[in-house]
């Protein structure tokens, strides 16, 4: 029997102002799979991610690890699905890094004695030293803030990790560091991004979204190398594929 981490069926969502963000989305993601969602701005990528743990609820069905996403099991679903937001300032709202990382487990009633170990492990998994815990996130560089944001999600030990533009605004070194960290994660990954080089590095499967619909779903390399398909949806073939730097 196939194990699905996410099963989305006929999902549609319209924002209160009448903007149709998602229209009849069907998407299955296997346990342990790493998929990228690419598409132009306003395609509905972030909106789709927000449906994975019930922040937004549209029509249609969303199943997470076999359970239907419903009001009654939101707490369990949010244990399973971690979301990394685009702007770390949205994700880091506590006075210190330690408190930010511990926020999720405390809400999930993890025993107090267990918290320090989990916080240290999450910081370590995100490539950070535990001494950063006492600092205010306002004092950190953007790269550090991004990794602390990742730690705030990893600490909840999610089975599925949704990431919204994880490499945006990062300098090349921090970007490379984040890609290394993300590549080492064991969770099912769903990455919404414009960074097609990241997609080539991390994801084996890519879904192309535009105007709230899925237009293509397939093997990453084949899809990103398809200049016609990419051009039709406002995207470009990544430089490394155009110049032949990357072997197929």
């Amino acid at each position: 029997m196939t194990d699905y981490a996410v099963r989305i069926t006929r999902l549609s969502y319209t924002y209160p102002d009448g903007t149709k963000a998602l229209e009849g989305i069907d998407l299955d993601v296997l346990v342990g799979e790493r998929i990228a969602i690419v598409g132009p701005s306003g395609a509905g990528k972030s909106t789709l991610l927000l449906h994975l743990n019930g922040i937004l609820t549209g029509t249609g069905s969303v199943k997470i690890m076999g359970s239907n996403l419903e009001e009654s099991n939101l707490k369990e679903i949010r244990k399973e699905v971690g979301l990394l937001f685009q702007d770390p300032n949205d994700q880091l709202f506590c006075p210190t890094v330690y408190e930010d990382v511990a926020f999720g487990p405390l809400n999930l009633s993890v025993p107090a004695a267990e918290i320090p170990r989990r916080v240290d492990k999450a910081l370590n998994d995100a490539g950070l030293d535990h001494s950063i815990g006492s600092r205010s996130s306002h004092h950190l560089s953007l790269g550090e803030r991004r990794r602390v944001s990742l730690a705030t999600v990893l600490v909840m030990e999610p089975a599925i990790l949704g990431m919204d533009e994880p490499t945006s605004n990062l300098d090349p070194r921090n970007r490379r560091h984040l890609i290394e960290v993300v590549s080492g994660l064991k969770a099912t990954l769903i990455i919404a991004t414009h960074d097609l080089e990241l997609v080539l590095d991390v994801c084996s499967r890519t879904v192309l979204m535009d105007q709230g619909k899925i237009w293509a779903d397939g093997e990453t390399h084949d899809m990103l190398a398809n200049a016609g398909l990419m051009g039709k949806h406002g995207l470009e073939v990544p430089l490394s594929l155009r110049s032949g730097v990357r072997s197929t």
Partner: protein
Amino acid sequence: MRHNFIDRYAALDSPLHLLEARTKILAFTGLIVAVLFIPVDSGILFFVYFFATAVLMGISQVPLGYIVGRTLFILPFIVLASLAAPWHGYMEVGALFIRAVLCLMLLILLTNTTRFVELLRGLKKFGFPQILVMNLSFLYRYLFVLTEEAMRMKQARDCRRVGRAPFRKELKILSSMLGTLLIRSFEHAERMHSAMLSRGYSGDFPLISRRRFSWNDLAFLCGVAVFITSTFGLR
């Protein structure tokens, strides 16, 4: 603006810093209330409380220059407040001024011997409303984010204008900037709320307490209580 604008020296490890937040909140509140009740004509009591504050400053290791600087920073407001009540006579105005300065120094000492988050924990443990504590925590975290946002907007405005506009036009630009900042803050708050929900937030804002109430706390509280009682008994 620096992020540790409020509690720059709160990370020191003087005996005062090592006390639990609730102890300091209680003790400093007691001292402030006592200062407010010092009779106008009791010069000796004013002196005793100044001396006690100086002793606490010495124990805290917070630089004297910093406390004086901060006090001077707010001094104009105290002077204005004192001058606003001249009908009480010089003695009353002088007493009002000294009380305000003493209270201010004690507050600066409290906020610089206790990390802001510890203060919030203390307030929460004293039963302060959850929503108030949470908002103060957000204020501490986001005040500087918003300040930076405002500074960036100001820079963007300065880049696109030559010379100063007439006052009315300046006012119009400023109001539209404030409006934009408000909308951005609102959007920011919405995204933050989503991030909180996705990490299991259900109404309770957990704050981790690292310090425990100890014998030192009890001793300090007793000391302050004895001091206050004896100083008023002295009179």
